[in-house]
């Protein structure tokens, strides 16, 4: 005779583990040592907060009053420097009367970038939209026709320049990096060697050197009369630089993919490029989203190095605005905090987006 199997119903885990009190106990006060550490850190936090509030708010000067700023130097912050110099910091050397142009152009560019971040807009119209956006962008920024005064590219500056360098370099570097990563795994020795050489060469050199070479050395090798715009040279420099790093990141993702995936795709009769596009890259890129975003964020901040070739993006424009003005120069810290806020806002947005897209691409991997 056999016994009939009876299953036991599942029930919730015992003990109340929810609510703020339980959370505190589990996370902050689970032992004498941890309680001590928690309280110590809390005290430190409060002290830092009070001290900085004292400086940043209570004794701070909020209007552009140079006299009161000077009186409270070292005691309170002088936020007036932002209303006084903010415009110059954000816009750089772009002619003041034409500031509306970079504002519209940059807003347009960021708008298209935000759209491109949303998977629901990933369709055939997107490249077209980019084309239109870039055309409008450069017409607006450069001018010279349709009644707009011409503004030379070396006059572009401040935050619009930071955005433009980042967005264009990212957009160019990403596909380039994919090709280089695939190239390094190619079965053709010539392509493999070329890609390896490129990556190793670029990685062995600091970005400043690349920019310097692009800006000062390259024209020396150009034939007489051929002049490449400084902005273009810089964009190419940054693109080549980040693409090399990103290629290695992507190669890591390619390496992580089991060989069976490409074999299965090959047995289904798919061609090399079909396999890469539909099977390999979607999975490889999804695994390296955090590292790709790392490179992007790095690139965004590295644009500040273009000061070396006399282009004044956000950080450069700050120096430009304050170094030449002895009155306001002492309040550089406040100005740096201002651009810190701008950089942080954008970097933070990028990391949040990265987390979100990671989450999205992980859906299919959940068991």
């Amino acid at each position, binding site marked *: 005779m056999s016994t009939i199997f009876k299953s036991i119903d599942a029930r919730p885990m015992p003990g109340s583990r929810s609510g703020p009190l339980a959370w505190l106990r589990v996370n902050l006060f689970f032992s004498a040592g941890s309680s001590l550490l928690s309280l110590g850190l809390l005290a430190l936090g409060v002290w830092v907060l009070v001290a900085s509030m004292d400086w940043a708010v209570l004794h701070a000067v909020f209007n552009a009053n140079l006299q009161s700023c000077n009186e409270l130097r070292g005691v309170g912050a002088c936020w007036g420097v932002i209303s006084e110099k903010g415009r110059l910091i954000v816009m750089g050397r772009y002619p003041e009367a034409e500031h509306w142009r970079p504002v519209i152009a940059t807003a347009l560019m960021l708008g298209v970038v935000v759209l491109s971040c949303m998977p629901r807009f990933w369709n055939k119209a997107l490249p077209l939209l980019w084309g239109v956006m870039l055309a409008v962008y450069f017409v607006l920024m450069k001018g010279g026709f349709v009644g707009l005064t011409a503004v030379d590219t070396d006059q572009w500056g401040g935050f619009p320049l930071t955005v433009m360098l980042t967005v264009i370099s990212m957009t160019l570097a990403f596909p380039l990096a994919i090709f280089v990563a695939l190239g390094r795994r190619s079965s053709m020795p010539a392509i493999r060697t070329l890609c390896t050489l490129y990556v190793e060469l670029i990685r062995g050199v600091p970005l400043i050197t690349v920019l310097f070479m692009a800006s000062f050395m390259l024209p020396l090798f150009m034939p007489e009369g051929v002049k490449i715009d400084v902005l273009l040279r810089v964009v190419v420099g940054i693109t080549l630089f980040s693409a090399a790093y990103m290629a290695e990141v992507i190669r890591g993702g390619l390496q992580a993919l089991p060989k069976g995936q490409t074999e*299965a795709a090959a*047995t*289904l*009769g798919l061609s090399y490029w079909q396999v890469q596009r*539909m099977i390999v890259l979607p*999975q490889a890129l999804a695994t390296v989203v955090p590292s790709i975003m790392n490179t992007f964020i790095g690139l965004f901040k590295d644009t500040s190095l273009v000061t070396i070739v006399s282009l004044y993006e956000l950080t450069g424009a700050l120096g430009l605005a304050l170094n030449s003005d002895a009155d306001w120069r002492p309040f550089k810290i406040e100005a740096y905090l201002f651009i810190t806020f701008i950089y942080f806002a954008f970097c933070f947005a990028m990391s949040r987006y990265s987390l979100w897209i990671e989450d999205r*691409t992980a*859906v*299919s991997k*959940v068991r």
Partner: protein
Amino acid sequence: MTSNATPLIEFKGVNKWYASNGYHVLRDVNLQFAKGEKVVICGPSGSGKSTLIRCINALEEYQEGTLTVDGTVLGDDLKGIDKVRREVGMVFQQFNLFPHLTVLENLILSPTWVAKMPRKEAIEKAMVQLERVRIVEHAHKYPLQLSGGQQQRVAIARALCLTPKIMLFDEPTSALDPEMIKEVLDVMIELTSQGMTMLCVTHEMGFAKAVADRVIFMDQGQVVEQAPPQQFFDSPQTDRAQDFLSKILGH
């Protein structure tokens, strides 16, 4: 073997070495497979049986001899490889489904991109195959949401979507929990009644006895013995096969 018609697959003095370490993995392989034949290939691990069937759809290349699949000699000619791959379906030990695509998308990928079939038609055909492997209700799930047995059945359906002439099975049940082996074998047994040519590397001797026309026993890259299952299991001719069978049937 006994038929006088041209064989569908023919190995003539095939030798293969692994490029990475120079290991001589296939040694003087001479084999013929007739259309509609069901063949089980067995042997100890490292005997070259997986490599043998992987040569048939050019996942592996060989250095000596000739391998002809449905009139196409497999060599360096890429066009020939494309043609052969369309006629040969393959099922792997590790399923190798594409985890970022749903079950249905896995199935219609090749019909839409390789055979250029309209999407709607591809979906209809895919659903027929899913019905066949009894997995219709999971069509819109992702592979990793399914059990191993279900995944392997999806993999079989995916290979069938190209209506191949030849199906290769590379240890299709070796990665499965014992309880799931039967559901996959059942699907494979059902396929044998459709007249398709099947080559199966497996240690499922019950399956071999039930459906195979011929059993091939390999060791150290060589074909040691081949015979109808009854004869092979009852009276193996070589000591090596006797030893192998006593080990796998002993417990």
